């Protein structure tokens, strides 16, 4: 059989998920084997009988020759019952579909059984022959104990009705929970038992009620087996359940029931045998039977009482142990509770001291529970729960959105979060609060509440602000101090320089050669001091981020030539040659002209300082192509060089190389720091390569000037398609006269004037470009249509009219504009491409303007 206890599958109608003990499982397994065995035995018996009928072997139809035969219909009924009960035993089939088919066929068979029983009974009751008795095989007339040939006994009919119905109603339950099937099976079982008892006592009366056909022995056994199988087919429910359970009642029932069934039969049979043998009379026999019955049952009761008492003792023992365990558990719980209380007390003490308020917010009711510190922080009377609105009203309105967003974020993301906000207290004061909260999830992983802490950080915030202010003040003080000191140093320096110059120019009488030489030394040192003060101020500005850099299109070639010229005299004095090795086709760089000279002079000055007589200082340049193009400028010397450690630190502020004694005066150690700042501010890099005793090479890069870089920041996404871009030109014409200096001033002033007229983010004043007429013409790229461009031009002219002193220096300003081709954003082309296109277009237009100027 397929059945195994491990794979026990509850049949429909049995409550699923009931846990069963091991002994119960074993019992059920045995019962199942019994039911199955009974069913199969019955089926086998019926088959044998049918075979007997089929082949006319009479002995097969009755147990012993001469006994009543089992009729064909009885055999069919028993066989069907056996099959039906076998089909309905639990754990037969797994799939739902086959289960319902099985059940359906079982019910059909059971109904057939009922039909056979009902038909047979009807024939007896109404004295008719329905023709069903010898449907299959003929029963020879005059069979033993048979009233009508082939007709089963009336008791068998009743039993079939009962057991057939029981099989149909196997899984039905009455309202009180007991199965009607078991009651019905008891009836048929009782009939079987009665017949068996009759055979045992050889009393034909019992097995032959109403003097009709007798119940055959094999029929009686079959009925008994089938009925018991039906009875135990559902061992958990109803009467069977009372027998199969683990309870004391079931145990007692199991012990007594077999004895109650078997012992009286056995004793009755023994006594009857004795009576029949004539050993004693009927009275004595009955007396004996009764006495033995009493003794046997008393012994049984005593044995059972003993077993129960023993079990009771064991149970009491177990109970005592469980009580002890329980007490120990309770003690431990109490201890843990106490330590938790202590912990909680400590925690609340700590939170109170640290002014940390603890809160818990139920999302459903929008109410929160606060601890005492929370109320203290918020200055509320301590009433819980606190409605959400009360909290939100306390938060300063300008901080509320952020504070609420923080909470909502925690809920949405189901995690921890923090924020800071301010609250207004009832007394009007304001506190800074820092909140940290965590979302608490329920079983469905949805947020039901938030717990968190509020910290009063007012003091901390105040201290922090004071500290920041202090640091800021200190920094400003330092800057102001440095800048003040530098200015104050300049005044006496001015006087020293003045009088040295006066002496040198012979205004206080002619100097002799030696005196003149010494005054020259004074003057040289004044210049050094002056440049140190300038450096100091530059550093102060660099630190304040105010180092002014105005990048424009600058010729590196010019800057290098100028710087070399400036230092030519001192290099010749030192006997060091200054060499420029620049390629002629160097593109203009995007840099501040003055700052570029400053960088070059610092580097060249350093190089001269460390190069011995007869050495050489070289300036080289090359183009570095990449994503962006750079010009690399190099200043190399044949001086004493530096160690690798010094190379690393050389751009640090106040860093100075340890100098051999013969070296000239040290500087402040600020020059290279300023260089680095300036180069970085202009978008370049600076580095050094050096070898001791061979020389050093300082290199720095500056971006190649490109219009792209100038106009790129203007071009935000929403500007495209840039349908109308105008090039506005403001041209200064000097009407003769005026020094070069004043012309320079005018240029500067007009540049500022033009700058003032521009609309931010729409117009850009292009830097001076080498192919522009040296700043006498200003070019403006404007995101404007024709009308916008004309308005801009008019604005510049009007502004110019407002500055009379410019107008009267024979200066004229000519403002014109020209429209550029539109720049639609074509599919597939990136914005960078568009910028390049626009820059190229601008450049070409500017070049053509200058060219046309030249021709005319």
């Amino acid at each position, binding site marked *: 059989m397929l059945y195994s206890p491990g794979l026990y599958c509850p049949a429909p109608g049995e409550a699923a998920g009931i846990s069963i003990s091991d002994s119960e499982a074993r019992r059920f397994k045995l019962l199942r084997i019994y039911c199955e065995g009974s069913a199969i035995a019955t089926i086998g018996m019926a088959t044998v009988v049918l075979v007997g009928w089929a082949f006319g072997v009479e002995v097969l139809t009755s147990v012993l020759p001469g006994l009543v035969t089992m009729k064909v219909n009885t055999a069919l009924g028993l066989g069907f019952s056996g099959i039906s009960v076998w089909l309905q035993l639990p754990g037969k089939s797994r799939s739902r579909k086959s289960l319902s088919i099985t059940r359906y066929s079982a019910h059909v068979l059971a109904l057939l059984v009922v039909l056979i029983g009902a038909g047979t009974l009807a024939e007896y009751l109404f004295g008719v022959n329905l023709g069903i008795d010898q449907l299959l095989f003929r029963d020879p007339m005059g069979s033993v104990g048979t009233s009508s040939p082939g007709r089963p006994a009336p008791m068998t009919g009743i039993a079939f009705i009962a057991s057939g119905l029981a099989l149909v109603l196997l899984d039905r339950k009455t309202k009180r929970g007991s199965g009607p099937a078991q009651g019905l099976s008891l009836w048929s079982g009782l009939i079987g038992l009665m017949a068996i008892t009759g055979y045992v006592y050889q009393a034909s009366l019992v097995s032959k009620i109403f003097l009709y056909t007798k119940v055959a022995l094999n029929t009686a056994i079959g009925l008994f087996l089938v009925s018991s199988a039906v009875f135990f087919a559902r061992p958990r429910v109803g009467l069977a359940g009372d027998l199969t359970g683990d309870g004391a009642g079931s145990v007692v029932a199991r012990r007594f029931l077999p004895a109650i069934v078997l012992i009286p039969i056995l004793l009755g049979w023994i006594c009857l045998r004795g009576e029949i043998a004539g050993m004693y009379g009927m009275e004595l026999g009955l007396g004996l039977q009764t006495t033995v019955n009493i003794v046997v049952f008393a012994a049984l009761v005593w044995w059972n009482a003993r077993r129960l008492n023993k079990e009771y003792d064991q149970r009491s023992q177990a109970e005592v142990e469980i009580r002890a365990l329980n007490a120990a558990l309770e003690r431990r719980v109490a201890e843990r509770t106490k330590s938790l209380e202590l912990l909680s007390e400590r925690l609340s003490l700590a939170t109170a001291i640290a002014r940390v308020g603890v809160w818990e917010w139920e999302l459903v009711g929008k109410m929160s529970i606060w601890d005492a510190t929370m109320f203290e922080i918020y200055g509320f009377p301590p009433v819980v729960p606190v409605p959400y609105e009360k909290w939100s009203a306390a938060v300063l309105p300008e901080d509320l959105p952020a504070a609420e967003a923080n909470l909502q974020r925690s809920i949405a993301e189901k995690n921890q979060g923090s924020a800071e906000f301010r609250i207004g207290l009832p007394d009007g004061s304001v506190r800074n609060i820092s909140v940290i909260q965590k979302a608490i999830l329920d079983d469905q992983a949805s947020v039901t509440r938030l717990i968190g802490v509020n910290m009063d950080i007012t003091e901390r915030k105040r201290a922090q602000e004071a500290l920041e202010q202090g640091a800021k003040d200190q920094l400003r003080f330092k800057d102001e101090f440095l800048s003040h000191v530098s200015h104050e140093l300049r005044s006496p320096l001015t006087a020293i320089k003045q009088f040295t110059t006066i002496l040198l120019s012979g205004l*206080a009488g002619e100097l002799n050669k030696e005196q003149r030489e010494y005054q020259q030394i004074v003057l040289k040192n004044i210049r050094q001091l002056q440049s140190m003060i300038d450096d100091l101020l530059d550093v102060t500005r660099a630190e304040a981020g105010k180092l002014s850099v105005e990048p424009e299109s600058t010729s590196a070639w010019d800057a290098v030539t100028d710087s070399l010229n400036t230092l030519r005299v001192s290099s010749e004095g030192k006997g060091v040659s200054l060499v420029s090795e620049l390629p002629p086709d160097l593109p203009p760089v995007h840099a501040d002209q003055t700052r570029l000279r400053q960088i070059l002079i610092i580097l060249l000055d350093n190089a001269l300082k460390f190069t011995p007589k007869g050495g050489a200082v070289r300036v080289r340049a090359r183009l570095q192509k990449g994503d962006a193009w750079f010009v690399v400028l190099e200043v190399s010397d044949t001086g004493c060089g530096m160690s690798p450690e010094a190379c690393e630190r050389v751009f640090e502020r106040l860093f100075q190389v340890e100098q051999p004694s013969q070296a000239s005066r040290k500087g402040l150690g600020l020059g290279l720091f300023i260089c680095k700042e300036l180069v970085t501010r202009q978008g370049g890099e600076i580095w050094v390569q050096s070898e001791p005793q061979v020389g050093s090479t300082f290199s720095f890069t500056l971006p190649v000037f490109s219009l792209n870089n100038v106009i790129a920041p203007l071009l935000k996404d929403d500007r495209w398609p840039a349908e109308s871009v105008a090039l506005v030109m403001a041209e200064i014409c000097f009407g003769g006269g005026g020094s070069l200096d004043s012309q320079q001033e005018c240029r500067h002033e007009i540049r500022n004037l033009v700058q003032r007229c521009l609309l931010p983010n729409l117009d850009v004043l292009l830097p001076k470009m080498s192919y522009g007429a040296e700043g006498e013409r200003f070019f403006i790229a404007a995101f404007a249509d024709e009308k916008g461009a004309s308005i801009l031009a008019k604005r510049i002219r009007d502004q110019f009219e407002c500055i009379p002193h410019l107008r009267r220096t024979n200066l004229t300003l000519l403002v014109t504009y020209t429209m550029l081709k539109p720049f639609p954003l074509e599919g597939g082309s990136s914005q960078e491409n568009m910028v390049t296109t626009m820059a190229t277009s601008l450049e070409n237009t500017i070049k053509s303007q200058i060219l046309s100027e030249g021709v005319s």
Partner: protein
Amino acid sequence: MTNNLSNKKILIIEDDADVRLGYNVLLKANHYDTFFAADAMGAITEARKCLPDVIVLDLGLPAGDGFVVLERLRANMQLQMVPVIVVSGRDLPVNKERVLLLGAKAFIQKPWNDSELLALIGKLAGQPDLSVAQPK
């Protein structure tokens, strides 16, 4: 250096006596008549008295700084046309723009080169500026 027939008058407004003496030697040697003021108060008084051709103004002055002097000069009918050269030890970028806006003709950083200063004074004294820059 310069060969003016009639001496031009230069007013020096400078609080440092040594620097004033330096100016005196240099300008006298270049045939200028020199006048001096040591503070902002005295500056206007002295200017009205001498009606100079060029004013050299130091920014750092006691009793009101150079900016105040510039504003007062611009507000004075007699003096508003006089070209002013501002000389200062203060930072160049910030202050230069401001003084030029207030109508000064030039800004020179201390310590200066004598030749530069003389060239500038010569230019401004020789070519009296006809423009009238009104403060807005």
